[in-house]
C-alpha cells in the first residue's frame, strides 16, 4: 500500500507540473493585457507596470521565472490589487467556497444515495419513476437555470429566501440546492443501477437462502457492494462540483474563490488565474487519489491486489 501511494504521489506531481505549464501558455493566449483595460492609466504607467511585472520578457523567460517561484512556494502577487500576495487572496476567498462545496457534496450524496436505494428497492413503482424523473431533470437542467428560477420564485415572488449574497445559513440554501442538484441526480441514477445489479447477483440469493431478513440482505449485502462503484464517480463529481461553484458563486454574489477566479480571467490578472487554477487542480488530483485509496479500503479485492509487495 505504501509503495502504491508513493507511486501515485510521483505521478500526481508530474500531472500538476503539466497542468501548471499548460495553464501558463493558455493564459498567455488570452486577448488583452492586464493593464490596457484600465481607463485611468497613462501609456507611460502601463509601460512601467509591464516592466515591473516582467511582462516584456520573452514568454519562455516568464515561464521559467514563474516555475522557479512556484517551486519555492511563491504564487506571485496580484496585478489588480496593489500587489497583494495571491496566496493571501486565495486564503481570504476559500471560506465560502469550501463551505458551499462541502455542504452541497454532503447533502447531494446522502440524498442521492437514499433516492437511488429507494428507487431500486421499489423497482418499477411510482417511487422508482418519480426518482428517475427528478434525476433526469437534475442532470439535464444546468445549475445556473435552476439558480435563476429559484431566485425568481423563492427570492423575489414568495420572498422565502434571500436572493443573493453571503450572510448566514439562509443564504446558503439556494446555492446549495443549485450545486447539489447534479450530485443528487448523478448519484441517484448510479446507485439505482448498481443496486439493481447487485440485487440480481447470486450471492443475494445465497444470503436469502440463509434465512436473513430482507433488511439484513439489503443493508449487509446490497448497499455496501452497490456503493463501491459510487466511490469511483465521486472523483469526477467533486470536480464538477468545483467548476459548478464558479458560476453559482457569481449568480448569488458569493465572495468565494470561484467568483474571484472568473473575475481574474476577465481582468487578465495572470497570477490570480494561475494561483486559483493550480489550487483547483491540486484539489482535483488530491480527490482522485483519495478516491482510489478509499476504493481499496472498501473493496478487498483491490486492496490485496495493490497491497501485495
Amino acid at each position, binding site marked *: 500500500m505504501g509503495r502504491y501511494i508513493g507511486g501515485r504521489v510521483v505521478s500526481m506531481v508530474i500531472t500538476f507540473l503539466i497542468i501548471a505549464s499548460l495553464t501558463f501558455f493558455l493564459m498567455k493566449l488570452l486577448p488583452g493585457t492586464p493593464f490596457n483595460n484600465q481607463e485611468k492609466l497613462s501609456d507611460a504607467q502601463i509601460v512601467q507596470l509591464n516592466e515591473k511585472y516582467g511582462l516584456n520578457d520573452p514568454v519562455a523567460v516568464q515561464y521559467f521565472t514563474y516555475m522557479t517561484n512556484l517551486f519555492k512556494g511563491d504564487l506571485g502577487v496580484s496585478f489588480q490589487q496593489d500587489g497583494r500576495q495571491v496566496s493571501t487572496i486565495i486564503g481570504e476567498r476559500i471560506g465560502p467556497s469550501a463551505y458551499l462545496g462541502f455542504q452541497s457534496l454532503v447533502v447531494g450524496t446522502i440524498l442521492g444515495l437514499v433516492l437511488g436505494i429507494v428507487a431500486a428497492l421499489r423497482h418499477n413503482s411510482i417511487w422508482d419513476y418519480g426518482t428517475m424523473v427528478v434525476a433526469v431533470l437534475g442532470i439535464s437542467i444546468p445549475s445556473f437555470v435552476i439558480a435563476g428560477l429559484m431566485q425568481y420564485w423563492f427570492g423575489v415572488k414568495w420572498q422565502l429566501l434571500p436572493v443573493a449574497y453571503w450572510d448566514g445559513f439562509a443564504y446558503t440554501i439556494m446555492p446549495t440546492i443549485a450545486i447539489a442538484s447534479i450530485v443528487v441526480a448523478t448519484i441517484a441514477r448510479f446507485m439505482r443501477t448498481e443496486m439493481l445489479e447487485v440485487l440480481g447477483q447470486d450471492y443475494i*440469493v*445465497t444470503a436469502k437462502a440463509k434465512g436473513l431478513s430482507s433488511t439484513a440482505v439489503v443493508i*449487509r449485502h446490497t448497499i455496501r457492494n452497490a456503493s463501491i462503484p459510487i466511490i469511483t464517480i465521486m472523483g469526477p463529481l467533486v470536480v464538477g462540483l468545483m467548476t459548478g461553484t464558479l458560476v453559482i458563486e457569481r449568480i448569488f454574489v458569493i465572495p468565494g474563490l470561484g467568483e474571484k477566479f472568473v473575475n481574474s480571467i476577465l481582468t487578465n490578472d495572470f497570477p490570480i488565474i494561475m494561483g486559483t487554477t493550480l489550487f483547483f487542480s491540486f484539489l482535483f488530483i488530491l480527490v482522485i487519489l483519495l478516491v482510489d485509496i478509499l476504493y481499496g479500503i*472498501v473493496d478487498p479485492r483491490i486492496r490485496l491486489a495493490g497491497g501485495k509487495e
Partner: protein
Amino acid sequence: MERILDVNDLHVSFDTFAGEVKAVRGVNFHLNKGETLAIVGESGSGKSVTSKAVMRLIPDPPGRIKQGEIKFGDRDLSKLSEKEMQKIRGSEISMIFQDPMTSLNPTMTVGKQIMEGLIKHQNMNKSEAKERAIELLKLVGIPDAEGRVTQYPHQFSGGMRQRVVIAIALACNPRVLIADEPTTALDVTIQAQILELLKDLQEKMGTSIIFITHDLGVVANIADRVAVMYAGKIVETGTVDEIFYNPQHPYTWGLLGSMPSLEATEEDLIAIPGSPPDLLDPPKGDAFAPRNPYAMKIDTEMEPPLFKVSDTHYAATWLLHEKAPKVEPPAAIKKRLRGMAPDEPIIATKDGERNV
C-alpha cells in the same frame, strides 16, 4: 420410510409481458429421510424453479406458486408467511447454488458469511459463531481453517469456494439440503471431490438431499431415487437402478442415449431432436410428443397419466398403456444399458475418473 418433504400438484408460473409462462405444471414428488433424490432434466424443464419454489425463493413478481402444496412436516411451505419462511431457510432447509464464483459475497470474509446464519438461527454470539465457522470449514475439508476464516472469497479457488458454500448451507444442520447443479461450474476432477464430500457429509449428518442436475453421470454416482422432468412435469420417477436399467419413458431413453460414455462409439450417441416446448403456450397432450419418435395419436390429444411400473417406479407415457404397441428402447440405448453393470459405476470418484 419417513417422508420429510412432500410436494403435491405444484404449479409455478411467471407473469411476463408475453403472458403467463407455466414453468412448473403439476409436479408431485416426495423426499425420504436421509436419501438423495435427483431431479434430472434439460435446461428449462423446471427443475431449478421447483427447487426454488420449495425454498420460496422465486422472485415474486413475476413468479408465483399458483397452486399445490409443499408439505414439510406438518407445515405447508407454500402457505407460510415470509417471516416464517425466513426461520426455515438456512436452518431446516438449505440450498447450494450452481456457480461458486458468484454465489459468495465478494466483499465479506467467508467466516462472516458462514456466521450470519448461525447468529440468526442458533442465537450464537460472535465468538461462538466464529468457532463453529472454523469447525465447519474443517468439516468441508478446507485446510488451515483458522487462517482461512478471515479471508475473502477471491482468495479461494472454485472448488474451495464451493466447499465454503456447502459449509454455509450446512451451518445449522438442516434436515433438507437442496443442491442446484452444485458441480456444473466446476472442472471434472473437482466435481468428483465435491460429490464425494456431499456423500460423506450426508452420512455424517443424516441430511436428505435434493440434487438438481442435467448430468446423468452425477446422478448415477450420488442419487438413491431419480425424478426426470420435462416441460414442467415429472415424466418418470424411480430408483436409480430402475431409471438406468429399466427406463420406460422415451424422454428418459433420449437422455440416456445422449449421454456420452467411454465405451460408446460415435453412432451410439443419439441427440434428442427438436427443442423443448414453449411453456408460454404448452402443447395439448404429451409435451414430449413432437420430439418423440414413438409418439402415437393419443399423445397429441391427451396427457398421459403416471403409469405404475413397480411400487417405486412410475412413468407418464401412453406406451405403458395396455393397448399400446410394445416398443423397445433404441438399440444403441439397450447396448448402453447392457454396458452398465451394477457394480460398475459410471463415475469412479476415488481416482477422479469420469466419462466425458
